[in-house]
């Protein structure tokens, strides 16, 4: 029992990491549910990678990394909107172009500034074990913002997942709520990248919500399961990181993705036995 609990009781840095992981898990449970249900995984992935040049630029001029990430996310969302509005290119083409362009720009910026080379790993894979109080405050604010918006906009968000035409037909502004959903994804990525990293935050958005989608019959239950999977992954991942000296962020995300595949296998076996239709 000591090996499972004692590290968290004895080490303040692990307590902070666990608290940060719980906050990230709860935020990603709400936002990831909409990402999965609306099929927005690609824009989520692109946002997670697109913040890189913003973060690099901010560090180069001595600004907070989070402010740079916010600028990167804004450029990504604005750029996708501009390309799809001004051309006949599809949404995924626009996202792909900006995704790879911003990622390449970020890598060029980091590689051209010697002072940033050591930061690249931290940007991409996070600093779970180096979370400080201001990070926790920012994550708490982001969680509060996400929950408030998700509650206030729950009806149009659900309609948007069900049928975008129905949102407009019922008098809601579909484009406005779509942008609000993008803002939630961007806010989650911007705040969470310092903990789990730009590359791995996407895993926390998708894997727990994916588990929820497999086993839930209601959206609220899906969010609840996603939160449980996220928190369990945080605990198991941090524990594995402590005992085996694995990278903390990667261990947490790997646990979440592993849980997804275990549940997926179980659900597939169940369907093959009892049939897809009950």
């Amino acid at each position, binding site marked *: 029992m000591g090996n499972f609990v004692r590290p968290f009781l004895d080490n303040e840095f692990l307590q902070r990491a666990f608290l940060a992981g719980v906050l990230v898990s709860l935020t990603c449970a709400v936002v990831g549910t909409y990402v*999965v*249900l*609306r*099929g927005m995984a690609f824009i989520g992935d692109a946002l997670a990678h697109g913040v890189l040049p913003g973060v690099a630029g901010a560090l180069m001029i001595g600004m907070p990394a989070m402010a740079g990430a916010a600028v990167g996310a804004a450029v990504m969302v604005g750029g996708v909107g501009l390309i799809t509005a001004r051309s006949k290119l599809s949404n995924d083409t626009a996202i792909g172009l900006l995704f790879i362009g911003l990622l390449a720009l970020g890598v060029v910026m980091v590689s051209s500034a010697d002072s940033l080379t050591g930061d690249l790993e931290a940007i991409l894979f996070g600093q779970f074990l180096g979370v400080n109080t201001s990070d926790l405050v920012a994550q708490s604010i982001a969680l509060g913002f996400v929950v408030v918006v998700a509650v*206030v906009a729950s*009806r149009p968000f*659900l*309609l948007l*997942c*069900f*049928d*975008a*035409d*129905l949102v*407009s*037909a*019922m*008098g*809601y502004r579909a484009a406005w709520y779509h942008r609000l959903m993008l803002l939630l994804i961007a806010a989650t990525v911007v705040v969470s990248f310092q903990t789990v990293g730009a590359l791995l935050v996407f895993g926390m958005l998708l894997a727990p919500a994916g588990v*929820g*989608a497999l086993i*839930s*019959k*209601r*959206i609220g*239950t*899906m969010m609840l399961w996603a939160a449980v999977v996220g928190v369990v992954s945080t605990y198991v991942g941090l524990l594995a990181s402590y005992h085996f000296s694995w990278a903390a962020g990667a261990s947490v995300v790997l646990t979440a993705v592993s849980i997804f595949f275990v549940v997926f296998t179980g659900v597939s076996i169940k369907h093959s036995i009892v049939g*897809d*239709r*009950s």
Partner: protein
Amino acid sequence: MNETAVVARRLSVGYGSKVILSGVDAFLKPGGSTALVGSNGSGKSTLLKTLAGLLPVIDGGLEVLGRPVGELTAKVAYLSQFHQSGFVLPLQAIDVVRMARYDQRARWKRRTKIDDEIVKESMILMSVDDLAMKPLRDLSGGQQQRVYLAQVLARRADLLLLDEPTAGLDAPGRAAYIDALNFERSRGAAIVTATHDVGEASTCDRVLLLAGRVIADGPPNVVMTPENLLETFGIGLTKVGDQLVVTEHHHDH
């Protein structure tokens, strides 16, 4: 209840500046039913979307329920041809029908007993009340379509806009649909249906044959002549009972 359901004058509809259907003049009364009939790309769905306020009017005038189109969304019910996430969304059938009541009350108000009664009645009308607690993704395509139709009924709208409403329905499903429409009409709702189904169109008061323009407009027995059907579909057709039978294959449309 308004004195007119839809008034269209020299209406042109389409996407952006591209006109799909033009020259539509229509005056639809409450309690009436109108079928939009035409081949793929004739403008049926585009006209329905414009009536629902989803597409802007390109040219001409359009009033819905006595107001400029798009103003009275709470009094209009729209059934789209395709739904995005029926097989992904973790929703029970009753959740889908309850969505119909979202804009019938203030944002912060919880659903009322009246909402619950309307949802239940609508599900009974479409014979899906026994499926209420089933996950939507576990239902067959026909059962899902019945749930979507129950959602339309639960809006208690003055104008129902239905795009291919009988797609995937079996005979009992179609019977339930006809009964439900009769109920809607009896309380004064106007119905506009886009359909390929001639049998379904024949049950309406009025048929608009469309092919980028209005080929003919009037009662089904007057409008659905072999000549009009030839002009509408580009091939020779004649109506035999509820079916269209091909009589001529080559025609320059």
